[in-house]
């Protein structure tokens, strides 16, 4: 290899390494994907990340944006393999009886097999609609595992809070129902 060709190859290799490093720095600096749960912990009230997923009951798709400005939302991330989800979804089902006319209850079945999820809903008498997030990509935007995770979204589309303790359910339901 001649000297100019060698220098050109070395220059290209150095430029490639610098380019990759710049890309890494840019990615780290612009990484704003901390998730809704973390934003709430930091005292923020982010806008609910949009999603458009297939309904678990096979009746087409559901777009979260379709409710913005129309109805507040309770968003329940669950899976049929998740034992604590039974308790939380059953509580939400009871709340649905009281708030169902003012608040939309939406389940997000995540990292789950849809056949098992439908059986689970039937078995536990869960009637509010759910969408299927098999890959967990929607869950990741809201905070990731573990589940259950339950979020309360005001009519404006802002996320008001996440259910952390038992008392959060009636408190946040009253708050978003009045929004």
């Amino acid at each position, binding site marked *: 290899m001649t000297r100019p060709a060698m220098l050109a190859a070395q220059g290209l290799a150095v430029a490639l390494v610098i380019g990759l490093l710049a890309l890494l720095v840019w990615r780290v600096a612009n990484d704003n994907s901390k998730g809704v749960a973390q934003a709430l912990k930091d005292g923020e009230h982010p806008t609910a990340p949009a999603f458009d997923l297939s309904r678990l009951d096979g009746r087409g798709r559901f777009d979260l944006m379709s409710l913005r400005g129309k109805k507040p939302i309770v968003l329940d991330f669950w*899976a049929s*393999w998740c*034992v604590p989800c039974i308790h939380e979804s059953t509580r939400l089902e009871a709340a649905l009886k009281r708030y169902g006319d003012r608040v939309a209850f939406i389940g997000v079945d995540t990292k*789950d*097999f849809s056949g*098992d999820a439908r059986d689970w809903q039937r078995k536990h008498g869960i009637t509010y609609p759910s969408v299927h997030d*098999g*890959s967990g*990509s929607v869950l990741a935007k809201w905070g990731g595992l573990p589940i259950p995770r339950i979020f309360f979204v005001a009519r404006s589309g802002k996320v008001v809070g996440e259910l952390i303790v038992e008392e959060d359910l009636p408190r946040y339901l009253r708050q978003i129902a009045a929004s």
Partner: protein
Amino acid sequence: MRRLLPIVVFALLLVPTARASERHPTLAELEGEVMCPVCETTLDQSSSPAAQQIKRLIATRIAAGDTKTQIKNRLVAEYGSAILAAPPHKGFGLVAWWLPVAGIVAAAVAVGFGARRWARSREPAPADPPLDAASERRLDEELSRFEG
């Protein structure tokens, strides 16, 4: 060519095994090729409820006579392509398969060039051409004057 013969024979022996694995997959082999979606390990290293659920699904589909590809396609349809431990041999997944090979080839070429340059630098320098008669005579005179 004679050296390549055992490799070719060995590769041909593997073909029926691969076909049998595709038509009649076992739970054990699929457990090593499918990820647990909540623990980020393959199924064979997880006993989480989510992993157990997928193992049950695989066992049911094997019993129903599905091929390995059919089972994997079904899992991808439910959980997305990240459910597979190895990236697919198509689209962007090809990068993961061929980039290491390209890296090895590039490294081999670089080592080859380096070795060639190093070997050349160790070769003895070519001998100087002999002096012509006039120069030799002049050198002898200079030396005798210097020594004398």
